[in-house]
């Protein structure tokens, strides 16, 4: 065997992978685009915009994302899921947040992992192939807490003094939930540290309302 041949198997293998990754990246970029569109829709929350129309507009964009996930699933064979996971993990966390936010706005409910997975058109469990990995779902919840903490402040500006209380209850639950988890020192852990500040901010809004006897 000559030097040139030495790694030639590997080279062709990496070449395939290279081409494959490019395809995946293209789809991921489309997903990013979906997320940016959702962000624009959600900005309405902070300006009196009607919840119902936010949700319906949001769901339309999510359906778009669903199609993109379908493309991803078609591209991937099952077992390569974890090999390339890092490529779509970032955007999936964000889209998971978007789904959770829509569910909250519609029903004040905490979207389960199953609900979110269904909204994105993917599986909820590792056993079933391309799925919503737990980290992404949890990440989405933490993003949600951040956005709701911002919203609680703007609600008062808009004149809605009931919503902050609901947010307080809701994020409080998320907070207790997370305390049950033993997070390692990773990305999730770092984001989780931000939850404390979000919670503090919401607590401050509720405090401001309480001390003024509003909502009594």
């Amino acid at each position: 065997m000559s030097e040139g041949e030495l790694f030639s198997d590997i080279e062709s293998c990496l070449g395939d992978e290279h081409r494959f990754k490019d395809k995946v990246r293209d789809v991921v970029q489309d997903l990013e685009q979906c997320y940016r569109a959702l962000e624009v829709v959600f900005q309405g929350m902070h300006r009196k915009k009607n919840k119902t129309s936010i949700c319906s507009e949001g769901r339309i964009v999510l359906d778009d994302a669903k199609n993109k996930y379908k493309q991803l699933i078609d591209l991937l064979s099952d077992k390569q899921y974890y090999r390339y996971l890092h490529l779509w993990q970032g955007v999936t966390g964000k889209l998971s947040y978007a789904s959770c936010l829509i569910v909250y706005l519609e029903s004040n409910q905490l979207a389960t992992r199953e609900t979110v997975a269904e909204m994105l058109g993917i599986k909820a469990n590792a056993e079933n192939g391309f799925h919503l990995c737990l980290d992404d779902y949890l990440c989405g919840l933490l993003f949600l807490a951040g956005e709701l903490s911002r919203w609680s402040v703007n609600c008062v500006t808009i004149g809605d003094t009931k919503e902050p209380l609901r947010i307080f209850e809701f994020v409080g639950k998320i907070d207790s939930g997370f305390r049950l988890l033993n997070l390692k020192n990773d990305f999730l852990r770092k984001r989780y540290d931000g939850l404390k500040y979000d919670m503090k901010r919401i607590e401050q809004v509720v405090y401001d309302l309480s001390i003024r006897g509003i909502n009594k």
Partner: protein
Amino acid sequence: MAQDSDLQDVSANDVNELFGAFRKELDARYDLHEKVVKISRDVTIESKRLIFLLHRIDFTAEKLENSLQQAKEKHLFILEKLKKVAVLLKDVDTFQFVRAFSAGLQEFIEATAFMFFIEKCNEVNCENICSIILSMHQVTDFLSFSDETDSSKTVRLEFPVEEYLLGIADVTGEMMRLCINSSASSLGQKDLSKSLSFKLTAYVQALHNAFSIFVHIVDVSQGLRKHFDEKLRTMTANVKKCEDVCYTLRLRGHEMPHDILKATLMEATEK
């Protein structure tokens, strides 16, 4: 504060249940991860020891046999540990835990490649040295174990090809050390191209050439890219150090080497 009664639907209990399930899933994953990490750390340490052991090898025929035996036993011992990893990850996607065993695996590949060379260097010359470079294929074979519950099946430890490249890259460092350490013993040799130093250098050159092609492959993450670049830099330095040894040997040859030398060196060592 007013307690909104319409919020009962997501009760604290529900959340606890939900997160309780997450906790179970996370803990299970972390536990598995932790177990793999611990074995991997052992694999790293034992592989390093195998390398040290190989550096201590005495190339004189009878002793070589004996030391090689020792090395092979240690190698099997490490394989046993890697089998444990393979079994632990049998039913899950191993790519999820690559980071947990990557360090150990790379050190194992390095040690194996080094052992391979020492085992077979007498059978080859500088021209066909490539044949004793540990291949990806050989690594895969090592990491296919027979299933204890069903001997017809095999349990494989799968891993990304980068791991192989990163592992094998490191072996040049060990080759370089051996090349310098053993240069004195190559001195007496009439045909330098058959000397250990020249073979080591040919091996490192071949690996360096093959590897330098890969480093230019662009589609790897930024982090891995840096990693590769760094390995190549070290490798280039190693090649040059080996080449210096050959240069010196050749140059000394010009001063008409005597067999006296070998005797002198031996004498001094045995005192």
